[in-house]
């Protein structure tokens, strides 16, 4: 099987400091890969670099598109990048207000990405939006309300619906459950797990919550000081951590 996303020695630094250095990995279709580490370890920089939101300094990054074409992402033209973002990728922001448009209704937030890829039939778009609201366990009768009328956890689910409605193949998520209370978090995790397995999604998730990583991810990358210090199967990294930092991280989790 060819990897969906393949990074080699990817580096992005800010004035020669911070950022992420020398990151290499392969992500295969249907896999959920979690990037864990303390704040300031370069997780979000890495995610933004992978999602082409910030330009990499050096290294290489390749992506296998739907029809099997190998794309060199670091040399991609702007129109192709935008097309890729619309048709094959999703990006779920930590703060739902960054990923939603506050000036249009919940239904329009879900329908907009569909229109961006060519849907024009109003009835179909509204129907798809209703379906997705139910799928992420939102009350579909609130389809015409603005995002601000929903709670934080609901907004996060709305953002997930907005990102998945176009059936992307690769979804980036930056701390999707941070800032939510635990009961909403558990429900959201269950939802994400179901969606990733039924839609055969590949997902890259940044989180600092080891519990989230254990439940959702097939694989883990542990970052410290901008570098990946350990990578492997989720249960192996958490049950038999090799690197001193990973051992500290795992032994610092509070038991419930």
């Amino acid at each position, binding site marked *: *099987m060819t990897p969906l996303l393949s990074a080699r020695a990817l580096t992005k630094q800010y004035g020669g400091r911070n950022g992420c250095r020398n990151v290499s990995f*392969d992500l*295969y279709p249907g*896999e959920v890969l979690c990037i864990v580490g303390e704040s300031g370890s370069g997780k979000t920089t890495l995610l933004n670099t992978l999602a082409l939101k910030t330009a990499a300094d050096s290294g290489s990054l390749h992506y296998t598109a739907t029809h099997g074409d190998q794309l060199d992402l670091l040399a991609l033209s702007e129109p192709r990048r935008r097309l890729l973002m619309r048709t094959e990728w999703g990006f779920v922001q930590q703060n739902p207000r960054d990923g939603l448009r506050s000036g249009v209704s919940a239904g329009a937030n879900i329908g907009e990405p569909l229109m961006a890829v060519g849907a024009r039939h109003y009835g179909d778009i509204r129907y798809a939006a209703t379906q997705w609201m139910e799928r992420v366990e939102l009350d579909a009768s609130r389809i015409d309300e603005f995002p601000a009328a929903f709670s934080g956890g609901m907004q996060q689910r709305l953002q997930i619906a907005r990102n998945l409605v176009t059936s992307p193949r690769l979804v980036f998520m930056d701390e999707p459950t941070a800032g939510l209370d635990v009961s909403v978090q*558990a*429900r959201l*995790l*269950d939802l994400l*797990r179901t969606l990733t*397995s039924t839609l055969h999604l590949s997902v890259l998730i940044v989180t600092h919550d080891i519990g989230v990583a254990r*439940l959702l991810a*097939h*694989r883990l990358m542990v970052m410290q000081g901008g570098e990946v210090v350990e*990578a*492997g*199967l989720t*249960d*192996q990294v958490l*049950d*038999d951590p*090799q*690197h*001193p930092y990973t*051992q*500290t991280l795992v*032994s610092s989790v509070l038991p419930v």
Partner: protein
Amino acid sequence: MRSIETSSEARAGERAFIDNAALMLRAVGIGKTFILHGQGGVQIEALAGVSLEVERGECVVLVGPSGAGKSTLLRCLYGNYLASRGSIAIRDAANDGRPVSITGAEPHDVLRLRRGVVGYVSQFLRVIPRVPTLTLVAEPLLSRGVPEDEARSRAAALLARLNVPERLWSLAPATFSGGEQQRVNIARGLIAEHPLLLLDEPTASLDAENRDVVADLIVEARERGAAIVGIFHDEDTRGKVATRRLELQPPLRH
């Protein structure tokens, strides 16, 4: 990965799987040392120089005193622990029966092996909160592409056989008794009929009646042609399921 595997050893491993079509698992010179960096770099020797070959239809029971490394060996075989020394190869049904070396495989290959070949049942149920029992048990089948109706009816049949009351099937197992949780865990571990099963005390907190049901299920798996490596604390179950025993001794501590 940290395995010490010379190419001649790898070739000998491949040949062993070609020469013996029933061979499922071949482990040579497995050792495990834990290094606790946070506690002054203390080294704990958990397992030293264990070799093991398991064929289809065999059930190897690991015996030995507490601390002999029985669970550590099972976890190394599953890829949950990284073996510090030695090599482990498992026959890959999907890949013309060619072996995959767990020590040195890509995470991606280990994942595929776990879906299709290697099943692991521990003493503890570790699952996503709030997911109903029946869904949990059906999940391994769904992930292998079995239609939902069939997966759910097979899950129901297995839960019934393990005496998990039907009124509990729609509930999440967090509030179940220890024995009930363990039986849910066994159902989840056995339902996909993996050709290689690793069982870490699956009967630890069961009463005699349920222990017998589990022993029967294990014997059925064995007779179906599964290769099994297990740890059982009671002599009764060992006697029923084992075709062979492997005695482990605690490694010499420094």
